[in-house]
């Protein structure tokens, strides 16, 4: 459900390289900042594991 919500966001779906499963999206590392910014703009508070 959440993945669908993210993919429905045009600015975010552009950054998604692929969907590996219902709950896992794959992005390229160079898109990291843009992805996290967009998630935060959407009101999410992503946990970042480095």
């Amino acid at each position, binding site marked *: 459900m*959440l993945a669908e919500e*993210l*993919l429905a966001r*045009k600015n975010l*779906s*552009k950054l998604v*390289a*692929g*969907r*590996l*499963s219902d*709950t*896992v999206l*794959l992005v*390229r*590392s160079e898109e*990291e900042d843009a*992805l*996290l910014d967009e*998630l935060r703009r959407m009101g*999410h*508070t*992503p*946990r*970042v*594991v*480095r």
Partner: protein
Amino acid sequence: MSGDEVTADSVSESNGVEDPSVSSPPPQALPPLVAYVEALGKYPHAVAIIIATSLGLNDVRRRKNGLAETISEALAAPRAAERLILGLDHSSRLAIGIFALAEAYEWSTHGLFLTLQCLDVDVRDAIVPLLECGLIVLETKDEAEVLAWNPKLDPASWPRSVLRLFPGAMSSARTTLPLSEIPNSTDTVRLVRESDGLEPILRLAVLWQRVSEAPLRQTQSGLLYKRDRDRIEEDPALVGPIADAIEPLPDPAAFWLALGRSVGIIEAETGTERIIAAPATYWEDNAFHLPQMVASRWLSLTRWQEQGGAIAAETVGELALPNIRAACLLWLAKLEPDQWCGVEDLAAIFDRLAPGWARPLLDSVARDHLGGDLGGLEGILLGTGYQLGLIRLAEEVPSTRRVVQLSLLGRYVVGIGPPPPPRPTFDHFLFVQPNFEIIAYRQGLNPRMLGELGRFARWGRIGAALELVLSPASVYQSLEGGFSEPQLLEFLTKHSQRALPPGVAEAVRTWSSRRERVTYFASATLVEFASPSDLEAALVFWPTGRADPVRIADRLLLVEDESAIPFTRLRLAGSRDYRRAPEACLEVEADGVSLALDLGRSDLLVDAELARFADESRAGLRSDGRRRFVVTAASLLRGSTRGVSAATLSRWFPQRTGGPLPPAIRLLLAAATGTAPPLGTSRPIVVRTASAEWLDGLLQHPLTRPHLGDRLGPTAVIVPEESLETLRRVVEELGLKWESTEGPPTPLKRPTVGK
């Protein structure tokens, strides 16, 4: 002095024009040992030989190269620097002790001269022995000046030069006090004042938090962008008035920025032009020593001073006042704990020893300042010195003069006293209100607690009491910094004077749980198994005790820590680093819409990429075993709803197929977007000739050329219908024969050549 200060500089974000009212950036600092060897390497050979000989290196006279490294290695030998320092006289030990006091590896030559003069030390006696044994080296901007090096030490001949300390000598150098006595008073004093020393820690905590929220951007030359500079300068928590202030701090934003950079609480980000906050662990690692670190780094701040704040040092010269700070502390260190010294008395000492010490710049004419200037001295003692908790102030009885002495922290920093006892604290210093505001009383705080508070609550007003606010963003920031929700609630519960409002605890839990909804793995390893049963089998022998793998599909595992993968029990068929650029693994077939996947070069992403705008062929695998995908109008329509545009495909095809977007797919895209011009139909009239040569003639001749259209081949050309009769007439006038085939429309047969 140190060169790694954040400047008070700014640059207009819109046009990049520097603001002339602020100073310019620091030069890129080299590691101390590298800078030392580099400076020594510029010495004339004869001077380097003098140094080497003084160190007992007698076999180096014939060596042309590598002397600097040899000297450096000799000084780095166990206890070599310590033995040299013990053999120095008092004035040289005092000079080298100033480097240790400020924990600085370099000091302006003019600045050190002024400091030594103020301490009643003969500059030549102090510096020459240090230069001759290599414990310090001279570095000038002009190499010719080094070549003309001589021990006469005329400061005027070395403008803008610095003296560099051999880094290995830092731990052996000790603070040495001046020999002369300082006027002191043991009379009764009253109204003794001493700051809690928390002000710099508090402001640095605010700075750390603000930079954590949004890094500061600098231009390539190190100037802060105006927007970031304004953000800092207008932040009331950072530059608001200090509650317990005797003398104001000018240009506080520049001061806290410079101090923050010096103590490493904010730092330049490697590979970018940004200034970022240190990791949250900085507080755990450094909180205990932070007051002492702040004091030391204050002594070496050269681009900010207590009168006038930050100024453009490079454009106007070197500031004089920063060099007085160390002299003040060393003179006050001569006092016994029960003795005091008048501020005017200290100014009188400086007036006598270094007339013109209060001049604004080191190389400016001092005539106007021969009478001394109490303002700068009061700024040092009662402004920064007081706020940093180094100076204690009192009123002398009965004269009512202001007298000062070193505090316990001040005596510790100078090295004449033990570490000050920890601040008395009490556990319940917080008021947490239902509206998420927090009031903290300074009396219960210490640097470590300040750091912890700032990790999860946003600093508001800084005064006698401190105001903070809890918010989703601040809690998220704390979780990202490694401060967990239980830690946060425990801190609040432990230190609140009343029970934590239930709404606050609930909100913190809610905000924290939201973070668990989306997890971003900055790097991970995906393990793809041949079949779901293989994956199940691997999980049976997967080692426990580390982060468990995450099953993300029936054949895929996501592993955070690659070292946890039991490679010895798996057969590795291939690996791919997904940080690398995608590989061309698809072949476009002749029809332009069919794509064949090379399994040997493909990756997990390509399936997902293809699924957005193509369908796997139902015809099964190709004869060579490759999977086939077909692009159709319907699949492109699906792609367009998922953000796959013509531009996206134009970038994707070269990456994945090694060739441009095929025309057949361009056609489909144009059709889907309605941008394709309509196709036209017509029945052309074709003239055929017996040979290409005749048609060449018709196309070249000025009478026939205007009536012919596009050439279709070697012997065929289109004739516009409206030109047909004219062409026929012209051809016949030229003496050529014209034959027409039968039936409408009348096509023309080959003309034949007449006489």
